[in-house]
């Protein structure tokens, strides 16, 4: 649990000020990232044809999702899913996944 707390604290340091409500829940980034796991694997450790996200830099994940949202990067499905998350939520997800060890 200490590890999780430290990771949460580091995240908020990295990405600066968020709303107080969000800052109160140190597990928010973990919970948000878990919504990606059905396709991208637990903690982003994907299998098969899905893109692994574990250990990918937060900046890169944020940029990819921004491009999906804007349409700059064409997609089969991510242009639709990315629009369901706020930019703040995407930063939290990216920070969490970046901190995960790459999969098997």
């Amino acid at each position, binding site marked *: 649990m200490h590890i999780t707390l430290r990771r949460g604290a580091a995240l908020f340091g990295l990405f600066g000020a968020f709303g107080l409500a969000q800052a*109160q829940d140190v597990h928010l980034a973990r*919970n948000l990232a878990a*919504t990606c796991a059905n396709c991208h694997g*637990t903690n982003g450790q994907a299998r098969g*044809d899905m893109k692994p996200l574990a250990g990918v830099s937060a900046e890169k994940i944020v940029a990819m999702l921004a491009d999906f949202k804007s349409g700059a990067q064409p997609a089969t499905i991510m242009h639709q*899913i990315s629009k*369901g*998350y706020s930019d703040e939520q995407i930063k939290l997800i990216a920070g969490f996944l970046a901190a995960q060890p790459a999969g098997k």
Partner: protein
Amino acid sequence: MNHLNLGRRHWLGAGAALAATSLAGCAGLSASGPTIGRVVVVGGGYGGATAARYLKLWGGNVDVTLVERNTDFVSCPISNLVLGGYKQMSDITRGYGALKSVGVKVVQGDVTAIDVAGKKLRLAGGSELSYDRLVLSPGIDFMAELVAGLHPALDTGRVLHAWKAGPQTVALRRQIESMPDGGVFAMFIPKAPYRCPPGPYERACVVASYLQQSKPKSKVLVLDANPEITSKKGLFEKAFKDRYAGMLEYRANAELKELSGNIAKLEFEDVKADVLNIIPPQRAGDLARSAGLLNMNNRWVGVNWLTMESTAAAGVHVLGDATFSAPAMPKSGHMANQHAKVAAAAIIQLLKGEPVNATPVVMNTCYSFVTGREAMHVASVHQYDTTDKTFKTVPGSGGVSAAANQIEARYALSWAENIWADSLAL
């Protein structure tokens, strides 16, 4: 509440004989230090398995027991490909062994009674489990009584639903394989809500795809109680027209009223077929009903979306298809997995006496095959609305495929591999 009280009396009535085995007695010391609480999860499908896995992943010293009736996990998603002969049962079957290796106690058995007030449940055979929090992921059961003659036909196995993957899937595949060339496969779709909105239309396509190859003079008759196709409408209409014209006939507002021998009776006509595949009207699983949790239309379980806790019984969290859905939230395996993560996070906080996540998010993706090798999707993202206390889809997000294709078929199979691994700790 009457149901709960009845359940309690029933439990207490038999209680004197119960002293014997307590499976819970050997629980509690799996991780170092004392457990922060004991959670029993009943039902090892997409919802229950995920809840058990994530309670261990996120909870540390939570004592987790998963009770499941079957020896293995058999996936409903992808099971239509087994009906078409494109996949085997082994492709959609996975074990519970990996969950055991991450510290989940897996008990194969049937729950016969739940004592909500006493926080205990009993298994067939008489052993009991006590809990601090209970998670029920009971799936769906059928309201066969709404169609005259359906109950005995389902009970004897003469008519198959194959809406729970397993022996029914195998048996329906056999019926389809035994059809003569020139035979009729007739499927009946119940009024929504039912498990897996696009599933029936996918099944119609995949069966037609098989018949086109193997028995090209055959017919697929799709009789839908709904006024229109309930999911991916435009894409399925296109598949029916472009790929299966002359073979597949779709009829809306065609509700099955009665089954008499081999004849399915609609309001104005009788249908005879070589294979009758009847997907019956549905409600939350029997376990939720016997626990007195069906407080929405006497059919589904109302839940607090921040915790997935039943609004009918404190300390009981209900996941997946059994819940009374939030607006535009599908009853799907993917969504059950997402429910489970909301519940797991909340249960850990509640056991620690800490506040739960006030802004949960869930999302859904459902892939459907239109042939053995082409698929398409529908996706949605649901954010919690603090004013209305429910999940709502985000305007402008989500949607369906531009067209069914082979790339999405690869993604569909990869989706399955990843969600099975995520849910079962594979």
